């Protein structure tokens, strides 16, 4: 090809690319723009309003409401919420990851995977009052399973178990945490290449060696992300714990509801301060995640 022809080829080659780049930019704006507006209107703006409320008193700026976060009842609510979220996220992570792994193993029935995926998609979104009712009807003090277990000599409530306890809520939360974990970890498990496993085996590695040195380190960034997602999912849950415990277990979202609905007291500023506290907890968790993820995912950075 002559230089002139080559140059012409280059020109004709760049024109469509430029056109698509420009029209792509416009399309991006059309489709992403409304979403950004939506996020601004219903996430950023309320957050700013929440911050403003948390720091506003009758006479303007005040630390009072945020300062009240160190009250015993509030600290218990935060401790319970963090404990419940961390534990239920861990339970969801371990059980969900193992379930996804075993469902995806070669030789599993073809339909099992789609069955589990479909169920997970539904169950991960099944929370709130219906879920609470389902557990009260089964594991409540007069629930079907509780009564049946008692009939065979296992007295759950006699042994101290309560559905309206942190342990009880962890069991209830597992119902949506495990499926959510299955949904988010499946793509990461699929991305584990067969060649890595075979190469490890070929080099003399046992299954434990493979998971210790290859499989888990590769999955770790995904597991961490999933854990954060599950933590956030549990941390913000309100309807399920409220319906189950009717506020017996102090949790931050329930406390916020109490001060906003006026059952105990009506104080939007206290509610905003509690929400601000939740944001701080999530920021701290995300910060910790970023630090760890930076370390465990250093091999993936360019």
């Amino acid at each position, binding site marked *: 090809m002559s230089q002139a022809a080559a140059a012409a080829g280059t020109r004709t080659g760049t024109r469509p690319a430029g056109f698509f780049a420009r029209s792509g930019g416009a399309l991006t704006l059309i489709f992403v723009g409304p979403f950004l507006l939506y996020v601004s209107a219903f996430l950023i703006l309320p957050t700013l309003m929440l911050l403003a409320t948390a720091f506003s008193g009758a006479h303007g700026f005040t630390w009072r409401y945020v300062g009240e976060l160190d009250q015993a009842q509030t600290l218990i609510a935060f401790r319970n919420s963090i404990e419940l979220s961390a534990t239920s996220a861990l339970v969801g992570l371990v059980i969900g990851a193992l379930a996804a792994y075993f469902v995806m193993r070669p030789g599993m029935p073809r339909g099992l995977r789609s069955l589990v995926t479909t169920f997970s998609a539904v169950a991960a979104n099944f929370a709130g009052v219906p879920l609470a009712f389902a557990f009260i009807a089964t594991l409540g003090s007069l629930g079907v399973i509780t009564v049946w277990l008692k009939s065979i000599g296992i007295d759950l409530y006699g042994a101290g178990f309560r559905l309206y306890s942190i342990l009880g809520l962890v069991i209830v939360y597992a119902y949506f945490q495990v499926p959510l974990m299955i949904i988010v970890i499946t793509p990461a498990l699929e991305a584990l290449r067969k060649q890595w496993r075979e*190469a490890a*085996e*070929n*080099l*003399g590695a046992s299954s434990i060696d493979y998971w210790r*040195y*290859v499989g888990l380190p590769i999955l770790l960034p995904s597991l961490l992300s999933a854990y954060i997602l599950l933590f956030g999912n549990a941390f913000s849950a309100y309807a399920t714990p409220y319906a189950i415990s009717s506020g017996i277990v102090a949790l931050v979202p329930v406390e916020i509801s109490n001060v906003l609905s006026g059952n105990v007291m009506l104080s939007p500023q206290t509610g905003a301060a509690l929400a601000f506290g939740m944001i701080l907890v999530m920021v701290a968790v995300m910060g910790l995640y970023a630090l760890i993820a930076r370390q465990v995912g250093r*091999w993936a950075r360019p």
Partner: protein
Amino acid sequence: MGYLEVEGVAKSFGPVKVLSDVSLALEEGEFVSLLGPSGCGKTTLLRIVAGFEEPDRGTVRLAGTEITAEPPAKRQMGMVFQAYSLFPNMTAEENIRFGLKVRRVDANEQAERARELLELVGLTQHRGKYPHQLSGGQQQRVALARALAIRPLALLLDEPLSALDAKVRVQLREEIRRIQQETKVTTIFVTHDQEEALSISDRVVVMHQGQLSQVGTPAAIYGEPDNIFVARFVGAVAELPAEVVDGREGIVALFGRKVRAARAQGMAAGTRIYFLLRPETVRVGPEGANGGLDGTVAGRTFFGALTSLRIELADGHGSVTAAMPSDKASELAQGTRVSVSWADDAPRILRRE
């Protein structure tokens, strides 16, 4: 008895028979390529040798020991996969040390072996890079070093060059051969690329439909194909239908004329044969010259120093490809009427069923 032996191996996946009664023996230090089209069973055979697939029948022996039932981890074989098999969470050096680490080899010895191998594959300065920071060719060099780190009794290469660009492929295949000759490790190399197989192997095994079609040196595979599949698959060839007229003198009838073919000697008169011409054995002259077959230049493919001319034979007798120096080929424009001929001992003769 060979150093690495496969005997009577058969394998099916469901109703699909992938390997049928395959037997092969490699000498110690030998470099053997399994060559064949996709689906011929070459990778399955390699995976059976590696222990990743279990044969339905047959045995695999290595250094006098049967290893058919041994898991891959116990076989002491190094394997290089097509691509993307390096552990992405480990640096080049950590990848190379992996096999030694899981064998609980002393850390100093691991480091020393990794250093030697990085030097052998020319990647010392890249030891601390992660796989995604290395080019495809560099990654495969690391994979080779990793496979050699455990001092394997046999090295298995599963199309290790197939994901690389043409220039890197040539460089790396030469490097693989150099390293294999230096380490003297018995090697099986799977490829569908005949040029690769012919250029670096001591012997080539051509596979077809789960069977060994021919086993021989690269020269024998190319020059003396046992059957029409090998002739067609390895190199370009013109297949002209002919019939032996006089087996004692080596005379055959080709498109109604009698021509000499040294390799037809000893064949019974009346035997239907393929008269095979490799492009480099075809001579092209002016029309009517040397009593050759007349034809017309119908196409050309430029390969740099050589040009391949496709010559349509007169009277619809098919076509013949001739490879000739590009400067000479440039004198023969498309449509030029020419005559093609060959030396008496050039044509390969195969029976035609």
